[in-house]
């Protein structure tokens, strides 16, 4: 931890938004500290659908959001190509989609400046043979998929290069207010329990669905409407192109190819507490029923797991209507920068809520413009022009990149630890070198180990072995404990994702893996006899 705690700005929340705000503040010369209660990207940013929006999903209902999406889509392709796979997107008209929506779609795109081209249906079927043959019309838009963790890392790296800091596992537990000013903030180290007090000049809350909790620390009300969305991961890329239904956005109407898998989403359901929600079997069944309108064979494909995230939906108090309460989709996806000076009389506090991952940079720019105005800083925003660190201009991600890089270095046997995602031992070693003290979950997010079709059944155990070997080499005291945590944590997490979808081949696979670990490997003997570590969120089957 840095010795000087003299920061201009404290940013709370290490999701995409917080990382973007940190970067922008740092580039404008403000010494900033970002804190995140867990690892980066463990909030909504790590549990989202993975779509780089073209804006097509919003053209009819929320033209402002659509316009922002396409503008940021173009910028992100330029500044963060390695985090993006340029899959392209289809908006397809199935027999269930209303003609008037389909007929007006191109005009609506044009009005919002979203590139849209109608292509012959036969071309789409040739490119994506798994599509429903009854699809009548297809439009092509510049959708993509975007990897959140690498994106956050790049933003943080840029901020660090500009003299700012970012700390993980630091939870904001309180702020002290003296009249109209926040005078200090108290952080708790979530691993050691130690407490730090800092005295920033300004506080920006980027806590997403948790923003209400942060504001409440200084007696300010920010009413969030956390909206849970559930997604299903399939064990194969049945499509290489993002596929959307061409209709008013709804449940189960979009499939996003992400690395070696494809993800169907989403749903929308109000939840009271963003840390506690459940996934029901009915919800899973309904998603599949809708998804079958895009890919008729979906019901027969193997599901790997279900997961959910909570949207940071917000509406200014006056506009909260009964209708919006009923259907979360009617709240604008466009973001709101809340100036707590004007609203609540706290002069050095701003909250940024709403938005999308796609627009995180723009959200940051709007927020930092306001902060700078208040602090008398006149530096302009440069985040749209400067390419992020660890990114090569024009080089977007593609599925075969790891294999290609390996081949370029001479190929041959690769010392693969994770066959599904092509993670080699040197890659894992390198990650561990760069992230001392990281958890196996951090490893998973950082390398994608265990995220492919076997869902960590084999590679987790290898990753744990390597972690143990390295810890032993440096004489660490808790070698065995960290390996235990790796194995148990991973198996628990895997099980949790399987539970709401327990059926067919995925249940069979789950049974085999638990048979291996519990039978021959005696995994239960590793469990310390105490209550399992309370998990951050409860994703659970309704009972």
């Amino acid at each position: 931890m840095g010795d000087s705690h003299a920061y201009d700005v404290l940013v709370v929340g290490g999701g995409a938004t917080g990382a973007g705000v940190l970067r922008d503040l740092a580039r404008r010369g403000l010494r900033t500290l970002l804190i995140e209660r867990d690892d980066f990207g463990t909030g909504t940013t790590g549990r989202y659908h993975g779509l780089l929006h073209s804006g097509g999903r919003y053209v009819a209902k929320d033209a402002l959001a659509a316009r922002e999406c396409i503008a940021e889509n173009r910028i992100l392709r330029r500044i963060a190509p390695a985090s993006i796979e340029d899959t392209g997107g289809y908006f397809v008209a199935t027999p269930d989609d209303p003609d008037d929506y389909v007929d007006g779609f191109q005009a609506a795109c044009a009005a919002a400046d979203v590139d849209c081209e109608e292509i012959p249906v036969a071309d789409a079927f040739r490119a994506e043979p798994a599509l429903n043959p009854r699809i009548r019309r297809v439009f092509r838009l510049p959708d993509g998929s975007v990897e959140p963790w690498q994106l956050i890392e790049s933003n943080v790296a840029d901020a660090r290069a500009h003299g700012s800091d970012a700390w993980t596992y630091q939870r904001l537990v309180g702020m002290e207010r003296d009249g109209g000013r926040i005078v200090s903030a108290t952080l708790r180290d979530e691993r050691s329990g130690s407490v730090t007090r800092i005295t920033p000049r300004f506080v920006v809350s980027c806590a997403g669905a948790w923003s209400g909790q942060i504001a409440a620390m200084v007696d300010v009300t920010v009413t969030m409407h956390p909206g849970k969305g559930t997604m299903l991961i399939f064990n194969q890329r049945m499509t290489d192109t993002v596929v959307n239904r061409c209709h008013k956005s709804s449940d189960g109407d979009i499939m996003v190819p992400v690395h070696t898998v494809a993800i169907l989403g989403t749903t929308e359901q109000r939840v009271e507490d963003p840390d506690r929600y459940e996934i029901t079997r009915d919800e899973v069944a309904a998603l599949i029923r809708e998804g079958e309108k895009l890919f008729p064979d979906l019901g027969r494909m193997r599901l790997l797991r279900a997961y959910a995230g909570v949207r940071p939906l917000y509406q200014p108090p006056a506009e909260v209507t009964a209708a919006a309460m009923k259907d979360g989709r009617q709240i604008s996806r466009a973001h709101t920068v809340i100036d707590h000076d004007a609203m609540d009389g706290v002069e050095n506090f701003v909250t940024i809520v709403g938005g999308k991952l796609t627009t995180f940079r723009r959200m940051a720019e709007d927020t930092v413009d306001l902060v700078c105005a208040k602090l008398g800083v006149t530096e302009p925003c440069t985040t749209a022009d400067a390419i992020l660190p660890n990114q090569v201009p024009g080089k977007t991600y593609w599925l075969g990149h790891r294999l290609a890089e390996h081949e370029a270095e001479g190929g041959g046997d690769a010392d693969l630890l994770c066959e599904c995602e092509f993670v080699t031992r040197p890659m894992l070693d390198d990650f561990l070198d760069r992230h001392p003290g990281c958890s196996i979950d951090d490893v998973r997010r950082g390398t994608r180990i265990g995220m492919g079709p076997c869902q960590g059944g084999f590679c987790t155990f290898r990753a744990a072995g390597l972690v143990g070997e390295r810890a032993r080499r440096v004489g660490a005291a808790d070698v065995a404990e960290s390996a235990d945590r790796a194995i148990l944590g991973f198996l628990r997490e895997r099980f949790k994702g399987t539970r709401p979808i327990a059926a067919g081949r995925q249940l069979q696979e789950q049974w085999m893996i638990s048979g291996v670990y519990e039978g021959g490997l005696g995994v239960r003997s590793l469990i310390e006899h105490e209550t399992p570590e309370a998990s951050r969120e409860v994703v659970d089957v309704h009972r």
Partner: protein
Amino acid sequence: MSTADVVVIGAGLAGLTAAIRVAESGARVHVLAKGHAATHWGPGGIDVAGIPAASTPRDGIRRLAGEPGHPYAFLGDDVAAALEWIRPHLAAGGVEYLGDLDTPLGLVPTSIGGTRRAAILPAGQAAALAPWAVGERLIICGIRGFKDFWPEAIAASLARERIWEGGNRPTSVTAVSVVLPGLAPRHNLNALTIAGRFDDPAWRATAIEAIARAVGSVPGSGGRVALPAVLGIREHAAILAALQKRLPAAPFEMPLVPPSVPGIRLYTALRAAVIRAGGRVQIGEMIERVEHDGRRVTAVVSAAAVRTYTVRTGALVLATGGIAGGGLVAERDGRLLEPLLGLTVEAPPADDWLLVDAFDPAGHPLELAGIRTDAELRPVAADGASLFDNVRVAGSLLAGQRYVRDRCGDGVALTSGWRAARSLTAVPAGHAAEPGSERP
């Protein structure tokens, strides 16, 4: 089209045991399986009742037999007979099993640095079981470049008292790694590749020397050496004997993640016994349909890509395993089906299948799901009425057992397979033998 007296569906411990015994009675037996079984995934021992409360397998059987609906309630008395019957068959196939129902259950160290309860083990693993003497050391010997066995991590874990439930354990645990000839520059070594190399006598002579040097480099004397379970397939007994002779400490194998080499040896020995007794084993036959005429099964049909294959039969042993084997199939709507005969599946409602924590000590209710039978292993309906006269159910498909958690799956599979065969081949007074009676 072909014809058999008895068709066995499933090539796991249950199905192959049944097949050996049926074949030895002189009947024509035909084993059909879509693929390999739990043998290839499991540790290759014969777990009869490895529950924490039990002192010996016999004690464990008694305790499990007292639980409501456990198959040991009607199979328990036959476990000893089935075990003693199978032992020479396995030995003839090159795998000797040590231990019996009165061997104390002990904690055996595993390749993730944990322990599991066992009493009956193949000779290659048996050295792990004896009580540890004061001062006795354990050396974990890994193979450089092999990614399914991490000696440092295993040793660090096994050095902890709690892994041994606070009881008897080695005094020290040390890790070493050995470079085996020709393997070092190769990556992606898997257990089967290495086992294959061990079967080669010239290669293994050098390998054993290398292992002996690595083990010899650890200060101290005596104790035991844990090696990954890769010590050959065909030549395993010879390899084990050579290592026992050459090493300063007693060697034993630690089972690994699949494919399980000890399990493959077990499967190979069982299969060989079926064939020696005159039976047939065909892997790669996915049975899609079983035909029956009222209460009697008449034929099984497999639908391969290019042809359908029908075997007419006088009787059927259904040993298709549980959820892992494919004998039970869970539908998305929450039904649990036995897909071949549509037998009544005893199962909790879908919302109660799985508990929240993967490792909840209570065990998931779904583990108990399966087919109910009468004491002759004939499947019964919910009201207890038997459904088919010439069908027997064996193995993990039987309801009422937590085969992994309670470590009773092998005992149930072995004994039910053995009993199913007896039931089908016994000649009740005044009747023709059941299989023969249907010979077309």
